[in-house]
C-alpha cells in the first residue's frame, strides 16, 4: 500500500514519465516533440504559442471541441472509478457507453415529446441501459462469484454487435446510421456553439458537472457510499459488519454502468445527432480506466484526468496538421496507464532510494 507518497505525486510522475518516453519515441523517429506539446497546449487553451501577439493567436473553437471531447471521458472515468471504489474492475465501460448511446438514440428516434420531457428521458434511458449492462456482470459476480473482468470484456463485444444490430433495426436506419434524432432530444446549443467559434460544445457539460457532484456525494456522504467503500477495501469485513455485499456489488456496477451510459448520451445527443453503426471500439471506456487510475478514483482527480485525456484525444487534428502521426496521442495515453499501474513499483524505487540513503547515512 502506498501511504507515504501521495497519489497526486505519483500521478504527476506517471504523466511526466509518459511524456518523456513519448518524446524519446518522437525524437528517434525524427519528429519534433515541441510541436506535439504546442499542439496539446493549443488544443487545451485555444492559444497558439507560435503566434503570440499575431492574428490567430486564440481560437475558442479548440476550447469548445476539447471540452466536448473530455465530457464522455470524464464520465467513463467516473464509471471505472466508481467500480474501483467498490473493489471492482469495470473494463466494461466501453460496452456500457455503447448501450447508453443506443438507448439514447432509440428514445430520440422513437418518441415525439416536448423537449423538457424528451431530453431528460433520453438521458435517463441512456443511463439506464448503461446501468443494465453494468449490473449484469455485477450480478454474476455477486451471485456466482465469477470475475467481473472477463465477463465485462465479453460484454463489451456483445454490446458492440448487439448495439449495431439495434441501430440497424431502428426505423429508417441504413447500414451505417440511423435517421436524425428529434431535435427535442438533443443537447445541442446554438448559444454555446457561437460562444466557441462554432465548436460542438453542448449542454452536456451540465450533466457532467452534476455527475461529478453526484459521484462525490454518493461515495463520501451517504451510508450507501460508506458501504461501497467498505466492500471495496475489505469484503469480508463489510459482510461481518452486516453490509449486504452481493447487492452492493451489483448496485455498484449498475451505477458505474449508468455513468458510462451517460457518456453514451453525450456522444449521441451532443456530439452527433444520429445513431451510428461502429466497426470497432472507440476507446472511451479504456480512456476511462486511465482517467480513473490517474485521478485516484476521486471526483476531483477524475475531472482533471478526463480533461487531460480529452485534450490528448482532441489534439489529434492539430498534431496531424503539424506532421505528427496522431497515434502518438494513443501512445501517451497507454503509457500513462502503464506508469500509473506501476505506482507500486515507483513506490518501491523510492523506498529503495530511501533505504540506500539511510544505509549511507548510517555508515558515516
Amino acid at each position, binding site marked *: 500500500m502506498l501511504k507515504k507518497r501521495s497519489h497526486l505525486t505519483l500521478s504527476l510522475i506517471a504523466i511526466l514519465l509518459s511524456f518523456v518516453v513519448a518524446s524519446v519515441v518522437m525524437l528517434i523517429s525524427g519528429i519534433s516533440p515541441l510541436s506535439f506539446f504546442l499542439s496539446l497546449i493549443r488544443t487545451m487553451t485555444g492559444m497558439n504559442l507560435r503566434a503570440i501577439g499575431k492574428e490567430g493567436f486564440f*481560437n475558442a*473553437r479548440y476550447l469548445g*471541441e476539447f471540452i466536448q*471531447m473530455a465530457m464522455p471521458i470524464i464520465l467513463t472515468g467516473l464509471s471505472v472509478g466508481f467500480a474501483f471504489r467498490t473493489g471492482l474492475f469495470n473494463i466494461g465501460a466501453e460496452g456500457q457507453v455503447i448501450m447508453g448511446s443506443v438507448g439514447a438514440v432509440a428514445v430520440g428516434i422513437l418518441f415525439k415529446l416536448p423537449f423538457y420531457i424528451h431530453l431528460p428521458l433520453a438521458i435517463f434511458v441512456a443511463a439506464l441501459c448503461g446501468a443494465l449492462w453494468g449490473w449484469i456482470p455485477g450480478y454474476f459476480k455477486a451471485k456466482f462469484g465469477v470475475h467481473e473482468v472477463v465477463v465485462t470484456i465479453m460484454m463489451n463485444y456483445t454490446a458492440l454487435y448487439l448495439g449495431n444490430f439495434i441501430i440497424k433495426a431502428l426505423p429508417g436506419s*441504413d*447500414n*451505417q446510421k440511423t435517421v436524425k434524432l428529434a431535435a427535442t432530444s438533443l443537447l445541442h446549443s446554438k448559444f454555446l456553439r457561437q460562444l466557441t467559434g*462554432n*465548436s*460542438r460544445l453542448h449542454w452536456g457539460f451540465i450533466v457532467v458537472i452534476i455527475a461529478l457532484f453526484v459521484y462525490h456525494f454518493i461515495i463520501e456522504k451517504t451510508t450507501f457510499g460508506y458501504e461501497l467503500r467498505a466492500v471495496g477495501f475489505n469484503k469480508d469485513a463489510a459482510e461481518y459488519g452486516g453490509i449486504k455485499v452481493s447487492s452492493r456489488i451489483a448496485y455498484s456496477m449498475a451505477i458505474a454502468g449508468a455513468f458510462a451510459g451517460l457518456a453514451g448520451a453525450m*456522444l449521441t445527443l451532443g*456530439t*452527433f*445527432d*444520429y445513431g*451510428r453503426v461502429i*466497426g470497432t471500439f*472507440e476507446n472511451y471506456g479504456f480512456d476511462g480506466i486511465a482517467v480513473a487510475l490517474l485521478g485516484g478514483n476521486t471526483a476531483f482527480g477524475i475531472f482533471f484526468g478526463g480533461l487531460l485525456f480529452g485534450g490528448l484525444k*482532441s489534439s*489529434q*487534428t*492539430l498534431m*496531424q*496538421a*503539424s*506532421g505528427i502521426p*496522431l497515434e502518438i496521442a494513443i501512445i501517451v495515453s497507454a503509457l500513462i496507464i502503464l506508469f500509473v499501474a506501476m505506482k507500486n513499483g515507483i513506490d518501491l524505487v523510492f523506498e529503495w532510494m530511501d533505504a540506500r540513503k539511510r544505509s549511507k547515512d548510517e555508515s558515516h
Partner: protein
Amino acid sequence: GEKEAPAAPEATEEETLVVDNDEVDKASLKEITIGLVTDTGGIDDKSFNQGTWEGIKYYAKKFELPEGNISFLQSTSDADYIPNLSQFSEDKKDLMVAAGFLFEESIAKIAADFPDQKILFIDAVVEAPNVLNALFAEHEGSYLVGVAAALKAQDAGKDTVGFVGGMDFDTIQKFEAGFEQGVLAVDPNMKVVIDYVGDFNKPEDGQTLAAKMYDAGVYVIYHAAGGSGNGVIKEAKDRVQNGEDVWVIGVDKDQFSEGVYADGKSVILTSMLKAVYQAAYDTSKLVAQDKFEGGTRIYDLKANGVGIPAVNPNLTEEWTKKIEEYANKIRNGEIMVDPVPSRIK
C-alpha cells in the same frame, strides 16, 4: 505549418489516366491550397480516399504547386469529421475535399458555418452554394465488367459469376446492379450470386466469402469491397496456385498488379475504374481558374468518370471490342443502365 505532402504510398498509374481536354498554361492558374479530409480509411485505403488524394497530387505536380499547398487530415472516427473540416476551413484552404456519403451531415454543417469555403464532395450530395458534388455512374462501369465476366465464363463453359460488396447500401448497390445487367446482357441464363461482407475492412471475411462462392461454382467474382476485396483477390491467387481456374474483377482502380501470382500473371480479369482523381483534378482546376460553382456533376462513362483499364492482358481483343460496343451504346443512350439491383425491386 502544414504537413508536407507525403510521398505516394504506392506508385500507381492513375495519374496518367487523368483526362484533360482543356489544357491550359500554368500561368493562367492561381496558386491554390487544397485540403483533403479523409474518413477512417485514410489516404491509403486503396479506394476513394486514395484516389482523391492522387488526383490532388497529380494536379499539384502538373502545375508545380509549392510544397505544403496540398495536405490532408485523417479522421480516426466520425467524431473527427467536423473538427478536421473546421480546421481546414479556418486555414482558409482554397479548396477542401471530402469523399464518401458518411460526410453528408458534416459537410452540410460546415458548408453553412463557412459559406466562403469551397468544397468538393464526392459520392453524395449536399445542396449548398459552396459545395460541388461529384457523383459517379458506377452502374455504367460495372455493366462493362459484367459483360467481361460473362464473356469469360461463357468461354470457359461456366454458368455462374458472383458479386461481393462491402456494405449493402445505395452506392455499392449501383455496382451490383450494373454488373448483374451486364452479365445478363451477354447471357440471360447466367447465374449471378450476390453477397456482402458487411465491412470494407475485413479481408479475412472477404476471403471466406470468396472461398464459399468459388466452392459453390462461381467462376468470376467482381468485388466492390475496398479492403475486404483484398481477401477476395488473395483467395483467387491461392486457388490458382493450386491449379484451379478462377478470376476476380477489381474495383476503383486497375488492380491487375494486386492479383499477380507468378511472372506477371494475374487473377485480375479486368477492373472497374472509378475516376475520383478526375473529379479532384477537375475541381482543383476550376478553383484555380475562379470558375468554381456549387452544384452536382455526374461522372459517367461519357465523362470518363468510370470505365475499364486501357490495357487488359486477360481479355481477348474480341472481348475488348465487344465491351467497347456496349460502352458506346451506353454513351449514346441506347442502353440505359438501372442503378437499382433487381433484388431490391
